[in-house]
């Protein structure tokens, strides 16, 4: 009987959005067992009942957020070896991929990262090379360890029993010591990798992102930036979209003052709808855009914001 194991991400007493997505993919494969590394687990476990999860294994004494990847991977590997799921699904976060990587080594399993689709037969789909190529792959050895990109599937609303089993970690101490932790405080805007609309600024902003932010706010969007903008220090690196930044695929991507060279395109060209505003009529971004405005973003954006606001109030 096929089964799939998923790793639960959480912070500050709430489970991550990715949990529903992982449970949905996992339920295609078979019975879903969720693994939660937490000590204060009751509230979190209650939330897990909203998803197609059959069983929840809580591991105490090895808190997900207070330990490094090493000890977590060691415990998770014990569970994988014991329960032999067909697949282990983890969200493609920085830590998630490291845990997945270490479990792959420990359990002698193949690993596929950043999948955007997963079939019942464990065929993983990846969008690679900046979205120009779609690849279907399978793991051929051991447990199929797959990390999934956030926002790749609509989370199933089907609830499950989430039968609880609690066990204690086999006292493994990591080689690393976390001496302090400052979690990211979520600002007013959506998280870049989860946002359905993104408004990005590039060289054309000349350092002034105020109009980009104004449009983002009126659309309830996240703000992104090109490498040129982040390298110039105009916006934090964490907002960079592109080859060496984040890869996003929102419903709408608005590129403001961004030329659209491969460096940036690689991070956003699979967006459902692309809009571009640029002074240069020959900017490569226009080859990608469903709608392009050749003009100064400092004229176009304020007019657009005013227009959207008046539609909202009418």
């Amino acid at each position, binding site marked *: 009987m096929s089964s799939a194991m998923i790793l639960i991400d959480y912070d500050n007493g709430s489970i991550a959005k990715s949990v529903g997505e992982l449970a949905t993919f996992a339920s295609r494969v078979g019975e879903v067992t969720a693994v939660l590394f937490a000590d204060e687990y009751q509230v979190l476990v209650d939330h897990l009942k909203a998803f197609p999860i059959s069983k929840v294994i809580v591991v105490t004494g090895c808190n997900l957020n207070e330990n490094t990847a090493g000890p977590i991977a060691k415990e998770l590997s014990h569970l994988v070896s014991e329960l032999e799921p067909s697949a282990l699904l983890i969200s493609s976060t*920085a830590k998630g991929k490291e845990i997945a*990587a*270490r479990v792959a080594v420990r359990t002698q399993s*193949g690993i596929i990262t950043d999948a955007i689709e997963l079939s019942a037969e464990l065929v993983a789909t990846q969008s690679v090379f900046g979205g120009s190529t779609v690849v279907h792959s399978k793991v051929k050895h051991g447990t199929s360890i797959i990390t999934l990109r956030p926002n790749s599937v609509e989370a199933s609303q089907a609830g499950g029993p989430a039968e609880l089993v609690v066990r204690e970690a086999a006292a493994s101490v990591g080689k690393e*010591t*976390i001496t302090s932790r400052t979690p990211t405080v979520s600002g007013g805007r959506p998280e870049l990798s989860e946002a359905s609309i993104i408004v990005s600024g590039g060289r054309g902003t000349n350092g002034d992102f105020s109009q980009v932010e104004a449009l983002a706010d009126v659309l309830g969007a996240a703000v992104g930036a090109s490498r040129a903008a982040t390298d110039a220090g105009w916006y934090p690196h964490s907002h960079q979209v592109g080859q060496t930044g984040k890869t996003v695929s929102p419903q*709408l991507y608005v590129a403001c003052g961004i030329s659209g060279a491969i460096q940036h395109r690689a991070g956003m060209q699979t967006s459902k709808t692309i809009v571009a505003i640029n002074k240069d009529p020959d900017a490569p971004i226009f080859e990608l855009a469903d709608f392009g405005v*050749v003009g100064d973003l400092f004229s176009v954006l304020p007019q*657009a914001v005013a*227009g959207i606001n008046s539609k909202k109030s009418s």
Partner: protein
Amino acid sequence: MKIAICVKQVPDSWAEKKMAGGLLDRDSVDAVLNDLDEYAVEEALRIVEAHSQDGANPITTTVISMGPERATDALRKALSMGVDEAILITDPALQGSDALATSAVLAKVISTEGFDLVFCGTESTDARMSVIPAMLAERLEYAQLTFAGVVTLDVASSTVSIDRMTDAGTEKIQAPLPAVVGVIEKINEPRYPSFKGIMAAKKKTIHSKSLSDYGINSAVVGSAGAWSSVEDALAMPARGAGIKVVDEGNGGNALVEFLAEKRIV
């Protein structure tokens, strides 16, 4: 103290990448030193410079790569930046290796040659998996200090401390050597090789090694040894160009109309 920097030669990120027979087609594009590995090389060089007063404990740097013969170009770039020497593990059997095989090969080299501190970039711009540093730490039983935006080495106490910076937040983490340190783009500004550096690099050694030099069985690497495989790959059709208007005082309004048609506003 011996510092290693693991680097990869990848297709130029400005070039279009294609698949050929289930693998990335590396031959038909220009190849460069992976962008993000430059930050790792730079950080290693800065650490050496920061400790240059300590004559009793000299620090050497070695850049290591697993790749085809032409990867020597990428290694030569690192040598031009100031790295002391290079090791290239090259063998036709390595083609098509997955991350597990790559990490196994690199780990064997690192443990055989005895490096105390291993620097890596966060990911390669071709595969973008971001798993090698963690796999190396697991295989070598070294401390894993990754996504570092700041790195400090304390030679006296043999410890490394980092500021780990990810979407989840910032953590200060420290560990005793030996350690694998993965660095992010934010950490530094890689130096351009100087003319002097380029000339000096010509005299530096690139040790070319095969699998048998490290006692690695060719059956566990390459496409044959891979634990995952590609079933098929499809090139996506290029996006067609859409509507383009020129702003003559109504560009913003035209944009709003478009968004309204798409039911976004």
